[in-house]
């Protein structure tokens, strides 16, 4: 067909059904973005760091979740807990450093305590307030330490030592229930022995968080990557399955990567993760914005923090085995970063693609249809790697939670379903 005029361009192309595309406004509309924060990110379990980032009692790590400042601490009892990083007095952020230890006292506080530098209120590692400066003089019997503990958050350490937190006290699922079986493909590998983070970097990218999640969920974009074309693209690659799980999570099944087909790269056989067949590659896209990518010798985890409809911070972590020798660790880092590091072959390409994708979808641009309509199945009828089932599965959960039809966000989810049927 020749290039289309405006009317033709606005029509649904070909014979695609209404669940096979989304409206570009879901990637750019401010009101939709705010709803996503309240209806999704405040209601789900998200990993916020890894337990190896808190190696000893009294270590802490700070982060944010749905714009709320969070502090994760390892208590003297070795238990990892999470709190809002907010002093109950005047709302000051209690700890400003990204990580550290409370073993030594802050300038205005005691050792082994969290101290708000503003007025020197102090808290123990369980979040109990244990000191209010000049409490009796100022509050008499109207307010005591027992009235002003920190805001605790539900927290679990799960799946290879990731620290999961939710802002929703009333969430009715544990992390395991929330995962809905999506971790079955790699749990044995992750839990075989303690893991350790060896790589961390962050990127703030001018794109909607869902564009990054979409990219992680569809492998059709492997045409973008010379590395993946040369080391993949064989029968077993195209047979990889795309499997949906409850709560919007997906898996992309494994195959054997031919690393030595890329000049200068080597087999990962020597340092395979426990129970992972040599050079294999398993992936989980976890709703609403987390990716676990276990590839040969290294685990990558992306955690997304949406900053605006057209801005996302992505934290990239690389993990190996805590028992690695220094030589093994260096090799593992090399394997991870040569593909996924900030100077690696693939990550730059992916980030470039989603940035230019968002550049066509400003809030004021005309709406577009973003196609998710590929159906590519195996002999059993199961979706395979270039099927776009991963994105369609995500948007069912997104639409249900937002009560918006992804193909027309002005329409309720139920009405969209009825229309699609």
């Amino acid at each position, binding site marked *: 067909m020749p290039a289309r005029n405006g009317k033709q361009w606005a029509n649904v192309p070909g014979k695609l059904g209404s669940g096979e595309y989304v409206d570009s406004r879901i990637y750019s509309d401010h009101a939709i973005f705010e709803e996503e924060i309240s209806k999704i990110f405040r209601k789900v379990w998200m990993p916020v760091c890894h337990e*190896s*980032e808190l190696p000893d009692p009294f270590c802490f*790590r700070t982060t944010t979740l749905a714009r709320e400042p969070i502090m994760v601490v390892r208590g003297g009892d070795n238990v990892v807990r999470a709190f809002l990083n907010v002093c109950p007095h005047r709302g000051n952020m209690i700890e400003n*450093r*990204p*990580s550290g230890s409370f073993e030594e006292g802050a300038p205005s506080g005691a050792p082994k305590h969290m101290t708000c530098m503003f007025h020197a209120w102090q808290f123990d590692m369980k979040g109990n307030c244990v000191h209010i400066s000049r409490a009796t003089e100022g509050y008499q019997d109207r307010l005591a330490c027992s009235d002003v503990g920190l805001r605790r958050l539900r927290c679990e350490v799960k799946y290879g030592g990731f620290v999961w937190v939710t802002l929703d006290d009333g969430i009715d699922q544990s992390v395991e229930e929330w995962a809905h079986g999506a971790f079955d493909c790699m749990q044995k590998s992750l839990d075989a022995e303690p893991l350790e*983070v*060896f*790589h*961390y*970097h*962050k*990127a*703030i*990218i*001018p794109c909607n968080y869902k564009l990054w999640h979409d990219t992680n969920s569809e492998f059709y974009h492997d045409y*973008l990557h*010379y*590395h993946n074309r040369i080391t993949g693209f064989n029968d077993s690659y195209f047979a990889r399955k795309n499997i949906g799980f409850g709560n919007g999570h997906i898996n992309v099944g494994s195959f054997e990567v031919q690393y030595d087909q890329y*000049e*200068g790269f080597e087999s990962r056989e020597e340092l395979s993760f426990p129970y992972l067949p040599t050079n294999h590659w398993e992936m989980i896209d976890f709703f609403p914005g987390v990716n676990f990518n276990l590839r040969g010798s290294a685990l990558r985890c992306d955690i997304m923090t949406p900053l605006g409809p057209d801005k996302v911070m992505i934290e990239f*972590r690389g993990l190996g085995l805590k028992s690695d020798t220094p030589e093994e660790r*260096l090799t593992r*880092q*090399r394997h991870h*970063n*040569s593909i996924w*590091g*900030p*100077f*690696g*072959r693939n*990550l*730059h*390409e992916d*980030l*470039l*693609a989603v*940035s*230019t994708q968002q*550049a066509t979808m400003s809030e004021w641009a005309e709406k577009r249809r973003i196609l998710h309509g590929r159906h590519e199945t195996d002999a059993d009828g199961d979706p395979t790697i270039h099927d776009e089932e991963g994105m369609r599965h995500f948007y069912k959960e997104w639409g249900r939670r937002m009560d918006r039809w992804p193909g027309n966000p002005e329409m309720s989810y139920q009405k969209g379903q009825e229309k699609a049927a």
Partner: protein
Amino acid sequence: MSDQLVIEDIKNTIYRASLYLDECRWADWLALCHEDFYYAIRAFSPEINYDMTYLDGHRADLVSMTEMLPKHNSDHSPLARHTVVYTVDVNDTQGTASCVSSFAVYQTQLDGINSHVLAGESNIFLVGKYRDIFRIGTGQPLFLQRVVQLDTRRLDKGTHWPI
């Protein structure tokens, strides 16, 4: 050759390398490197309290990496260095010299996102220090090792190019 002349020679080599890297003249840059050359980009993460190696390899690895660049999709926005050599310490006995330089890399947008709006805009891409070791005493000083120690850790889109 006096130490002062050796130091001048080394400084010139560092600055020449900066120009070659600015201009993506990878082969010319690598011609300034010894056959045992080792290159690494490192950063310390206060988030995970860990010395990280983002990229490393020997001369042969860099040759194949740069030769394969045309096969990759990349942001071609030029990167230009402002390099200042701080110290050069010559070790005549070992035939080496250790140097520390400070650098800032500026990126001038070309095709990274939306060229109509952004092309021509310059931003600081990253800052850090070059920690170099040279082989000296056999004519042209040659890079034996370069460790690019980054201060910048928010690397956004990153790059395929050596720094």
